[in-house]
């Protein structure tokens, strides 16, 4: 039993149907997630990196069982969330909390912060009002807000403060797994640092596992034990942050790394030439989805989709990439900051 991962995602696929464009035409589909498999052990943190449209947020919603996958499984403690009866799913949800991306949409404008933050306690644990108040104040303090916030409403807070409240709400039940979808991208740098430290503290204290979705590579580097890079619904690279960021083996990971602003005045001018061609919305159906933007693409890349494969140089299970020329790319100099 000890080896059973807390979270096991197997061949996960999610297609969305778009409205029909014409009466008799088949409804077009968006392939948001196209076969993801990974595991997350209790107490570990997995970073999910990618740009908008890569399927990060869809993955978060599937892991939270907020919507059913088209195919594939999400197992939490060995239980397939999508086959559980409603009561069991409700019980399983105790172990899951989520921090959403949009601090404006994720708080109810008609509820006080006390009501919002303590709601998970009320729903899942039936805590006394005094207890709720105390725990809510504690959670708020942990995210850098004072107890005077309890009686206020969301509109009285800035976007950054609202996101801190949303994080307090997720932390309050001390769940086993927190799915955090861009949890700190709306926060100010100094507050972001407090929250990142806090999330790491809580992880150590309570053995929290973290599925950490972010576009910010530096944040993921700091928080996560392992990182997967998504591109158009597929994993293009997986590995420990050090490996991934120093010997990036997928051209897309490299492009992401190069786009991160550096703390060196004037650094931009030298990189202008290396700019990535614009995203192509109609991805090729066969071949590598990244090929149209890739500087390394060959005829093989356009004909045959590369599968995620282990790279021998980094040791077994340590580093995998979905690229035909991964070894060449990994050997290039200057992947990291």
């Amino acid at each position, binding site marked *: 039993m000890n080896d059973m991962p807390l979270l096991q995602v197997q061949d996960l696929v999610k297609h969305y149907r778009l409205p029909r464009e014409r009466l008799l035409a088949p409804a077009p589909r968006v392939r948001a997630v196209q076969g993801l498999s990974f595991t997350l052990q209790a107490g570990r943190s997995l970073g999910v990196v990618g*740009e*908008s449209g890569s399927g990060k947020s869809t993955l978060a919603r599937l892991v939270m069982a907020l919507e059913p996958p088209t195919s594939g499984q999400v197992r939490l403690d060995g239980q397939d969330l999508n086959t559980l009866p409603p009561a069991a799913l409700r019980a399983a949800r105790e172990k899951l909390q989520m921090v959403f991306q949009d601090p404006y949409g994720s708080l109810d404008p008609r509820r006080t912060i006390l009501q919002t933050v303590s709601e998970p306690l009320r729903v899942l644990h039936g805590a006394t009002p005094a207890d709720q108040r105390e725990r809510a104040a504690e959670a708020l303090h942990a995210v*850098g*807000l*004072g107890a005077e916030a309890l009686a206020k409403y969301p509109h009285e807070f*800035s*976007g*950054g*403060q609202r996101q801190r409240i949303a994080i307090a709400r997720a932390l309050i039940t001390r769940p086993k797994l927190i799915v955090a979808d861009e949890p700190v991208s709306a926060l*100010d*740098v*100094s*507050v*972001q*640092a*407090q929250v*990142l*430290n806090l999330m*790491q503290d809580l992880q150590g204290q309570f053995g929290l596992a973290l599925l950490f979705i972010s*576009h*910010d*590579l*530096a*944040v993921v*580097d*700091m*928080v*996560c*034990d392992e990182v997967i890079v998504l591109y158009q619904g597929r994993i293009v690279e997986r590995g420990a*942050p050090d490996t991934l*960021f*120093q010997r990036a083996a997928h051209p897309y990971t490299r*492009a*992401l*790394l*190069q*786009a*991160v*602003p*550096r*703390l*060196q*005045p*004037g*650094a*931009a001018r030298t*990189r*202008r030439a290396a*700019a*990535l061609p*614009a*995203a192509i*919305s109609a991805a090729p159906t066969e071949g590598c989805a990244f090929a149209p933007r890739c500087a390394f693409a060959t005829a093989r890349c356009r004909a045959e989709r590369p599968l995620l494969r282990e790279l021998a140089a980094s040791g077994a299970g340590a580093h995998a990439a979905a690229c035909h020329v991964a070894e060449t790319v990994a050997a290039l100099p200057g992947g*990291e*900051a």
Partner: protein
Amino acid sequence: MSALLEVTDLRVTLQTARGPADALRAVSFAVQRGDTVGLIGESGCGKSITALALMGLLPDGATVGGSIRFAGQELTALGEDALCALRGARIGMIFQEPMTALNPLHTIGRQIAEPLRLHKGLSPATARAEALRLLQRVQLPDAAKRLDAYPHQMSGGQRQRVVIAIALACGPDLLIADEPTTALDVTIQREVLDLIAELVAEDGMGLLLISHDLGVMAETVQRMLVMYGGTVVESGPTAEVFRHLAHPYTRGLFAARPRLGMARGTRLATIPGRVPELADLPVGCPFAERCAWVADACRRALPAPAVVGPQHQARCIRLDALKS
């Protein structure tokens, strides 16, 4: 030669539910033609209020003191009509959120043509031709087809290009960009920042870039102003500010930023406490409550700018203590 934009001792007081709040005090800076100046700070520091004050778009009940001179004209004394003639014509603005800055009901072409028709009185046909030229200038692929597209048919990066095209339509002297890339992916952010930098250099306009991201500042602006608690706490050439980190707040901001290559489990340095609420700003240094170098004198009055180096100043009376 007088500066394109010269802000002197700007003070803005907002009416809030908790009484009047000094959103800005003693803010002074200048932007020359061809200058790129960055305004960096966290939410609630007053950077967006500064932009709104420059545009004359402050909320009702706000009172403005001090002076904002734009091309020799005193903006604080101008009436709404005169401001309307400036906004969108000589001062262009790029907003943070390309999803909401555009009107979903109008085509891209019509929205770019609007300032041209309003300010320059162009005919519909000429304005449309000019809109096409602008779309090509912001490097939107398939510009001719996009003229009749609606905002929802475009991606975030494309929409931000459209917003830039609108801001540039009348050839402004000053471009104010308020967090122009915050809502965009990193690879798109890179492209949009490069585009803004290129256009600013080509047209020789002044750029005031507002951002919370030190990396964006480092790569895009020549001079930067660090704002905290409604005032500019440090200002200077970007390279100098990065080298000296003179003000304790600037230092804190740098230390708090996660960087690639940090070991897993590294604790980021944090700035203790939290950003003061604008209604509760102390009379002294706004950073005093969170500062490790604080002395009694810091709390008595807002420190005057002290010289750190050529054109480099910090509002701190403890600079000597910080150096050791």
